């Protein structure tokens, strides 16, 4: 179980971004973390993976645990070795590297044998990458780059995979593929924490969902219930009951409406 307990994160010593966030991703699950821009979703992932100092952030309260062991004090490479892999927002592949070099970089912590197995598995899972293994990764399409980023993260054979907005900037058809891919990865034994703005996609695969707004978890329900929730339907799935309302009404309504009120 990957657990975050009462996490408080401060950037630059003054900007309080997370105000006591708790969430749990049990072994074998797919957990979705939803929320609007600037809610702190990426910060949650940075706190888990030890990348806060790069952004001058700090955990001031709370803790992150993996199967009971605390991760707060570990460095980012140690956390990767502990079995938490991540795909960062915007894919962040090494553009100047070839596809294969990218994958090998992802297997930095793995053994020689794991790397060759991992390469084989990645090429099997993503035939596109196999075709382009010697090509420079920067020339791949957005969807292919996303697959490369996911393949790279899987090279270290993580037990938990954190995905930050995999659907960002890729075609709707690819979003479908990514969705199926996430299910496949999960079935192969990797638990997934999925951070998304595309709530429809995230809730269609997740077992449990959290909604994060301005640094607080405002909803914490099984995904099936979230899909039926009126507020989530309106704000995240873009559905207003059955009839189409005027945009002006929506605005006024949103201004008055507060979560949990």
């Amino acid at each position: 179980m990957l657990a975050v307990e009462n996490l408080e994160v401060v950037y630059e010593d003054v900007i309080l971004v997370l105000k006591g966030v708790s969430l749990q991703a049990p072994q074998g699950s797919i957990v979705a973390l939803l929320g609007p821009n600037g809610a702190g979703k990426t910060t949650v992932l940075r706190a888990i993976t030890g990348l806060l100092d790069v952004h001058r952030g700090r955990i001031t309260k709370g803790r992150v645990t993996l199967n009971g062991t605390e991760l707060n004090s570990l460095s980012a490479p140690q956390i990767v070795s502990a079995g938490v892999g991540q795909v960062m927002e915007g894919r962040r592949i090494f553009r100047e590297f070839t596809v294969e070099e990218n994958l090998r970089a992802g297997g930095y912590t793995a053994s020689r044998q794991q790397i060759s197995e991992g390469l084989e598995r990645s090429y099997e899972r993503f035939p596109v990458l196999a075709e382009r293994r010697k090509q420079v990764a920067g020339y791949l399409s957005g969807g292919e780059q996303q697959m490369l980023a996911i393949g790279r993260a899987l090279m270290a054979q993580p037990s938990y995979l954190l995905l930050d907005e995999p659907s960002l900037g890729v075609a709707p058809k690819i979003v479908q593929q990514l969705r199926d891919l996430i299910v496949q990865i999960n079935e192969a034994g990797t638990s997934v924490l999925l951070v998304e703005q595309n709530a429809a996609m995230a809730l269609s695969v997740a077992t449990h969902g959290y909604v994060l707004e301005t640094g607080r978890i405002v909803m914490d329900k099984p995904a099936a219930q979230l899909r039926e929730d009126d507020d989530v339907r309106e704000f995240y799935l873009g559905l207003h009951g059955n009839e189409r309302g005027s945009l002006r009404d929506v605005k006024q309504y949103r201004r008055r409406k507060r979560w949990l009120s």
Partner: protein
Amino acid sequence: MDELISSLVRGLGLGGLYALLGVSFVIIFRATGVINFATPALMILGAFFTGAFGNAVGLPFWLSVLLGMAIMAIIGMIIERVALRPMVGRPAFSAATVTVGIFIILLIISGRLIGSELLTVNDPFGLDTVIVFGATIFTVDIARFIVALVAIGIVGLFLARSRTGLAMRATALDQETSLAQGINVGRMFGLSWGIAAAMAALAGALLTAGSSGIETTVALVALKALPVIILGGLDSIKGSVVAGIIIGIAESITRTYQPIYAPWLGANFDVIVPYIIMIIVLMVRPYGLFGTREVVRV
């Protein structure tokens, strides 16, 4: 014709040295984005250790060169850990200024170490010559060129093929993403300093082989690596090799022919030729021959 051949070979020898120094700069620049102005002092210190092993301990030349490189690699890593790691995330300009401070400290230390006695690296070449096509060639120049190319080739292979080399290149491209892959970025910084310092030490040993003794003033030669990295491109090892050879030959040819054809330029004009090339390159092609085409402020 004889003159041309001898000056070409001397140029290749010089070029090998400049290429080594250029690679030393490039490796640190690529990994950390910092121009390491301490390189000249690292070079002198490396020459001193090589000389000390050769003279005081009495080891064979090549063994003392390897030991000198090893010691300098360790010193380089210590410098990185103590003085430059705290600068990570600060502007590259501040870190470059720190390296200037390190340069001065190391230069004074090496001045003390060398003392007033004439110290040589105890090399087997001396002023030996061979005759090729009727031209007199110093064997030390041939050794410089070949050893430099071999050393750079080994470093290039290491970066291209090994897992650690891949991690170093990844760190150079994107530090945060490298961290997320489990790469220990700090260790890669240290390693790049270690390799760079070893390259500088090798350059020092080769430079002071031949006739000259080890003196702190020789450090100025290492500054010729600046024209080399500007011409070759700040982030390109291949560029350093090509530019090193070009600049070495340009300097050597000028030394041979300028007193004959353009005596009005005065004595020792060859010394400033690399800098003239640097200024021209900065005006027409500031990213160099092989550099990434983006403006990097130094």
